[in-house]
């Protein structure tokens, strides 16, 4: 392979070389400035192919009347204008009403799941801060739910939640006598609790991992000084640990929020393609609209609405947290 990149060569002080000097310097500058972009090119093209192109296709589909009749040649599907969006947000009609219900279920689920994941993860990380015998083993054990394949982990929960032979009812009803009769966890209202339990079980180790990493950056001297000043454990956590973790927590909570809000695997493996009403998360709801009822146009419109909502939440969150950071610096 021959290279086309010219290297600067000192050709003496002839008039011709002097005249080409500035041009060569300019070319060198372009090469220097352009090189990083050139190196970024594979990543940019991948981003384009993996994210942007499907996103644009999804947006185009949301304006089309796309059903099974046009699935082989979706470009030929008739334009629907804003109809798919109108149907999705008509909260008095069944499709919109179901979407709104699913949205509220998802919000409640996300807030509870993220809150509990953060609380358990942070508590566990703080408890693991000091060295003690068996700390390494405990840390490894804590990360097991995060390391397990989602499908295998959730299907095990399905077995445990079964009404007749499940471990959960065996413990709660047969052994502890906490319930009058065995409860249903995979159908009816309790399905929300089942979903939340599984989500927190597999989500908190991530919070634990991130908070634990954040804790490594807090100088031990701060705690020693605080202890000398008479600060108790709770005061140390409130005045030193939590403020020092603020930047880590901002990213952690945002990531947990986005993952939990869009979680598809957990509800799908727990309940299949038709989740009980109480646990009808928006990800499965949109999947159902698109791939079960084959109403791809409406499903795409719902996805676009969800994307806009998440962009809005992320934008507001980032604006608020960056304002908080500026205020604390001032």
């Amino acid at each position, binding site marked *: 392979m021959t290279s086309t*990149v010219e290297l600067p060569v000192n050709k003496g002080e002839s008039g011709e070389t002097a005249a080409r000097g500035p041009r060569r310097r300019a070319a060198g500058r372009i090469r220097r400035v352009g090189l990083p972009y050139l*190196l970024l*090119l*594979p990543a940019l093209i991948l981003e384009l192919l993996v994210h942007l192109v499907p996103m644009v296709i999804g947006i185009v589909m949301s304006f089309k009347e796309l059903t099974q009749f046009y699935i082989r040649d979706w470009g030929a599907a008739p334009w629907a204008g804003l109809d798919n969006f109108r149907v999705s947000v008509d909260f008095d009609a069944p499709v919109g009403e179901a979407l709104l219900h699913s949205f509220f279920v998802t919000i409640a689920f996300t807030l509870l799941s993220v809150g509990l994941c953060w609380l358990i993860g942070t508590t566990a990380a703080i408890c693991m801060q000091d060295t003690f015998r068996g700390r390494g083993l405990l840390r490894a054990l804590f990360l097991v739910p995060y390391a397990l394949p989602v499908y295998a982990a959730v299907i095990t929960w399905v077995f445990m939640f079964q009404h007749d032979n499940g471990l959960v009812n065996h413990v709660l009803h047969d052994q502890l006598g906490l319930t009058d009769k065995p409860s*249903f966890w995979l159908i009816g209202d309790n399905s929300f609790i089942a979903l939340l339990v599984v989500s927190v079980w597999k989500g908190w180790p991530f919070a634990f991992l991130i908070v634990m990493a954040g804790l490594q950056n807090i100088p031990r001297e701060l705690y020693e000084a605080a202890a000398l000043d008479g600060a108790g454990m709770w005061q140390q956590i409130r005045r030193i640990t939590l403020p020092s973790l603020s930047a880590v927590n901002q990213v952690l909570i945002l990531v947990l929020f986005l993952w939990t809000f869009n979680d598809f695997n957990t509800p799908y493996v727990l309940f299949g393609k038709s989740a009980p009403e109480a646990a009808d998360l928006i990800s499965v709801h949109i999947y159902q609209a698109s791939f079960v009822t084959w109403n791809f146009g409406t499903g795409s419109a719902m996805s676009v609405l969800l994307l806009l909502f998440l962009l809005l939440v992320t934008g507001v969150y980032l604006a608020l947290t960056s304002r908080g950071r500026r205020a604390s610096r001032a």
Partner: protein
Amino acid sequence: MRSIRAAAVGAVTMSLALAASACGGGSSTEGGSNDSPKTLTYWASNQGASVEIDKKVLQPELDKFKKQTGIEVKVEVVPWSDLLNRILTAATSGQGPDVLNIGNTWSASLQATGALLPWDAKNFEAIGGKDRFVDSALGSTGAEGKDPAAVPLYSMAYALYYNKKMFADAGIAQPPATWAEFVEDGKKLSKGGKWALGVEGANPSENIHHAVVFAKQHGGDFFTADGKPDFTNDGAVAGVKEFVDLMAKNKVIAPGNAEYAQNQSVSDFAKGKTAMLLWQSASANLKSQGMSEDSFGIAPVPVQSGTPGTGTGVNSMVMGINMAVFKNSDNLDGAKKFVKFMTSDAEQKILNTAYSSIPPVKDAQSDAAFNTAANGVLKNTLATSAVAAPQVADESQFETAVGTAIKGLFADAAAGRAVTTESVKAALEKAQAQMPAA
């Protein structure tokens, strides 16, 4: 400097390769061809107790086909839970198998995608003619007035499987013929931790199979004659209520069945936990779960009164598997040869015996192997008292919408909440509102 140049050249090369590979995919042969005459890919639906059992049944037959024609068939047995989505993806991308099995209730829905080869007179001629097939099976191959989208492969019908010993212990001499008798017998059988009937309450497809039959028995249909959803007519509501009432009011189904969706009811029956099972072609499955053939009997599914037959005597849907050819196949002639092979009299006898189903091919059906007492019930049901699934493009959506509504009603029954005509109607109303054509 040299390393920077190398990195830059590498980056550009990789980008071009990525762009080229992205542009290169997705080319498909519109309308099919014979570009690969020596191979075929085949998606077989999971018929046996497991995917492995299916492979053992099919592979010797595929080897036989290769010996006869020189065409190698690469088979993939696809579980039911994945099959419809896999077909849908194949239809979208144009990159599917050459030949595939479809549930016969999906025929009209998949026909609407235009991805399957229409079986016009010429194509039927290539496999020996349309007349070779039983009429009831042909009724589930696509919308009326259009060329079928598939060819019948295995036929099945619902029957009442009953545990002879449990019946004898409860002092019941013969299986119930009407629902009134069924409930009466069911109450005698539902004692001491054992129950009369097992159902898959959380499986939408299973639910609608029963709902269609119960609705028919009450003179109702879920679609109007011109194919519009009509889920809340009196017959449909009464039918669904009667089905759910077997758990809610009559208490002959264990409440735990409300969350069954993985064929647990078949296992319960095989283990003697339930005395009856409404199932299609369950014999092979029950035997593979250790239940001896003489320990269970097979009877027609009960009706409201009288004997099974047409009209309100309907007691099953025409169930079964159809074989379709993907329009984009690179071996259309080979695919038709393969369909001809699989629907030949000899193969029909082998395959339907292995899956305890009934051949939809007339000559094979008359074989002595399918004239046993058990098969007689299924054959008779198919011939006289089974109806085709609604052959409308929205059938797949109907299965999900109505099946999910019934799943919710079973959840209510299991939780001890009242299931009333109003609550059934409200659930069906909601299901209908979710239909695209509503």
